[in-house]
């Protein structure tokens, strides 16, 4: 495992030029993905997850903050630096249908990637392509097909192989499973975990599928309107979410085993605010189930930004009135936890007695 080879974001802000003025898609995000570990990034569409991913790989440039890979900052304005960044960070896209050039065979795509930073002769290139295909569990016969002749799952595997061909220190997986079928999804998630164990890259796993995130991540960060509102170890975050938004998100996920969810009141009353003019104070306050609109006396939420939280805490929640750790999560409750023997915490020390 490559220690210190991970990705770190310090106060990263990315602005877009929207049609009606600048939009701050990512606002002061700090995040750390150590080598060999996976950080899951969840949030609704428009929360800035994908913009963050694009900023990390250099497709967008942050207007403020620093992004370091392996402790080194890359200036995105310089072509040579950008190339060096590409050698360190790779991105796998959401839609395998468009992520591969439809006119290039798998072999050509992989060759392009494998030869992007190192010069390979014909034989070693063929070897490398064979090795990559094996790595992602595809047989060599796939090499001469164009993406159109592959299934969605196979295409996504090729996309992963292309990203890993440069042996990156950081892999960004941007919604890699959302276009895939359930059975294929499981195989891809398992494969990503295995590959990480073998190759030791740091992974930023972006998804709106909380179950998938839970399956691969060590730490989960929740984004809302450009900000990270809660960061915690996967187990802690899912068992005892402290931010109201995380709670809402978790309770909206249908579960096959947790029993039927009663049809209740609408979850989030208001619409998602326009990212171009986010609400003052806590950005979640207009929709918050325990915020000033529901509970009088919590006007501070509409005024003061809870973002200024002491960093370095293991479980960070940007909220003035966070839930306490022992409140229990909507999903850790009664039914399945007892009956099902839900997963025991990873460290024996924190075993509930």
């Amino acid at each position, binding site marked *: 495992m490559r220690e210190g080879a991970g990705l770190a974001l310090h106060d990263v802000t990315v602005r877009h030029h929207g049609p009606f003025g600048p939009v701050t898609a990512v606002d002061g995000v700090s995040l750390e993905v150590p080598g060999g570990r996976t950080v899951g990034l969840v949030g609704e569409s428009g929360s800035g997850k994908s913009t963050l991913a694009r900023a990390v790989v250099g497709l967008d440039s942050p207007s403020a903050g620093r992004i370091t890979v392996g402790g080194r900052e890359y200036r995105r304005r310089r072509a040579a630096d950008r190339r060096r960044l590409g050698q360190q960070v790779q991105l796998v896209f959401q839609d395998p249908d468009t992520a591969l050039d439809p006119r290039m065979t798998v072999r050509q795509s992989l060759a392009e990637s494998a030869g992007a930073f190192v010069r390979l002769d014909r034989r070693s290139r063929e070897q490398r392509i064979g090795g990559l295909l094996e790595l992602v569990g595809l047989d060599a016969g796939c090499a001469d097909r164009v993406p159109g002749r592959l*299934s969605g799952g196979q295409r996504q595997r090729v996309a992963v192989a292309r990203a890993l061909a440069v042996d990156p220190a950081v892999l960004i997986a941007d919604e890699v499973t959302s276009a895939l079928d359930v059975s294929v999804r499981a195989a891809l998630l398992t494969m990503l975990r295995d590959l990480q164990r073998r190759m030791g890259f740091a992974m930023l796993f972006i998804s709106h599928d909380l179950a*998938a995130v839970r399956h691969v991540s060590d730490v989960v960060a929740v984004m809302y309107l450009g900000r990270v509102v809660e960061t915690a170890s996967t187990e802690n975050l899912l068992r005892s979410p402290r931010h109201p938004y995380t709670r809402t998100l978790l309770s909206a996920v249908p579960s*096959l085993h947790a029993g039927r969810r009663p049809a209740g009141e609408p979850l989030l009353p208001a*619409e998602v605010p326009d990212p171009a003019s986010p609400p003052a104070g806590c950005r979640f306050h207009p929709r918050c189930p325990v915020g000033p609109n529901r509970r009088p006396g919590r006007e501070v939420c509409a005024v003061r930004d809870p973002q200024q939280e002491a960093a370095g805490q293991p479980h960070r929640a940007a909220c003035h009135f966070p839930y306490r750790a022992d409140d229990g999560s909507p999903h850790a409750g009664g039914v399945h936890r007892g009956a099902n023997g839900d997963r025991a915490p990873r460290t024996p020390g924190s075993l509930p007695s």
Partner: protein
Amino acid sequence: MVPSSLRPAAPRAAGRSGASRSGWASPLGATTLVMLGTLAVPAVAGAVLWRTAADRPDPSAVLRGPTAEHLLGTDRLGRDLLARLLAATWPSLLPAVAATLLGAAAGITLGALTAVVGGRARRLLGALINLLLAFPALLVAMFFAALFGAGADGAVCALAVACAPGFARITQTLAATVAGTDFMAAARVLGLRRHRLLLRHVLPHIAEPLVLNTTVAAGSALVALSGLSFLGLGAQPPSYDWGLLLSQGLDRIYTEPLPAVAPGIAIAFAAVAFQLLGEVLAGAAARRARPRQPEEPTAHPARAGRPAAADHVLEVEDLRVVLPATDRVVRPVRGVTLALRRGEMVGLVGESGSGKSLTALAIADLLPDGARATWGTHRFLGADAGSSSRGERRRRLATGMAMIFQNPASAFNPSLRIGTQMTEAVRAHHGTPRAQAVEQALAALQRVALPGGRRLLRSRPFQLSGGQRQRVAIAAASMMRPALIVADEPTTALDVTVQRQIMDLLRRIRRDDATAILFISHDIALVADACDRVLVMYGGTIVENLPARELAAGARHPYTRMLVASVPDLAADRDRPLRTIEGGPPDPCATAPGCPFHDRCPHRLDRCAVESPVLSPLGPEHEVACWGPLPPAPFRGQRVTEAAATEAAETGMTETDVTETDVVEKEEAEK
């Protein structure tokens, strides 16, 4: 000058007979070939055959009209005009083609560059192209022709400069579609250099429409060049082209029309030939992607249907769909039988390619062109679809059934206001007056908890978020008070919190109006959560029909069982590896008999490969299409290590550590 070839991904409508004859064999293609041949002969042979005749002056026959000797007459030096016309073919066509190629090369380079350069340079280039486009092409050509000096070479350069901006703009537009793709982003992340991006990724994708475009532009260039010559800015005597001949003929058009008309006809003829060539090429390109008609219109003998059950909204028996493909026949739906009771919410789950969406489209009579559906019985609201005319059927479907699609962005016409689109159906089918329809629409919006009222009705689809659009779609669907709503993956494109809103809305509509809902999804957790009954589809057939509450633990078909086990779940054990299903989905073209799942099934029997199982009852409200359905699974979470182990062994899933995990769990529980 903008031809139909300007669509890189031209709408590839499934084959309609008649429209598919657009290759060289069609009348248009043949005409084009003949016209091009007619041009080619004098172009190649002209200089050799008629040069002498064209240049030989005859002082005895100056400015003659048409005679037997000189079919078109002679010019003021007594030279034969027909010979001059034919000999001028090459000098007229070559500069036109050259100017087009030069202009295209410059324009395409300029336009394609916009796809690979950085932000600021891209904006500058775009502005430059816009600026150049702002000048009328012919004016630019005349300006540059004057600047470069009169003469054929100057005219060619001037015309190239004039047509370059057009090419640049088209290329820019086409390249922008490529530049935005993920594979270009991936190539950029790989740090590929610009010229490689351009040559490997951008140009190959836009080559086809550009070639077609260039062909058509050559026709326009010919006309423009002739114009320049006509104005005296092109070919200079003693050299000559059609434009100059036209100009010379024009001086005496009132006495002898033919010397002016003939070069005009030649110019028009050649220009039309180029245009037609472009059309034929575009047609051929579109045809390449168009599937063929299926050879066998599988007429299915309509069975004497059973009497309609009273509370059934929809009954479909043995539904089959056949799709044409380039070289084979695809059968995505192979005998689906389903029935929905009033007020029932039924989930139809399956992976992509299982035929679930086509089943829905076939039920709604919305199959894409070329696809054919046959059925044993198709009864909607008690009326047999087979016994009614197409118009009658459509009318009944239009008033009794509503459809909600996956992508709320494309389900609405972007240019029409929400109000117009919402009230369209009631006004057309119920004859509701406008004001009343608007009131109904407002009530429907209130029902889906969309604020804004009349303001919302006046807005256009793009002003709404995806979740809002889907809610408008549901509101519009519920306005007709349909007996059945078919919802095809209505929440797939939306976030979980919005998804929950949508699901709650559908449930409410079902409860309030007793609307039956056929809910199609690939998300089995969602289906189990929302529906009463679940139909599991695989390989174009329904393999299991069971109550939704039994899905998690009571599935009996091996496929359903494996599908359930492969779902990552917030409540399931995280360290237990997800189970995967080995192998791939069945080939939708295959005609082999047997169970579609047999080659991936760990429990297959000899019988499974040769005989297709039919959906048969297994218990109350539980049907399964399997020769050897699995025994009911032990209750989930029951700590019977042996039972779990046998289950794992039975289902043959790619997992080995069930026993270990369970033992660990057991130990922990004892602690």
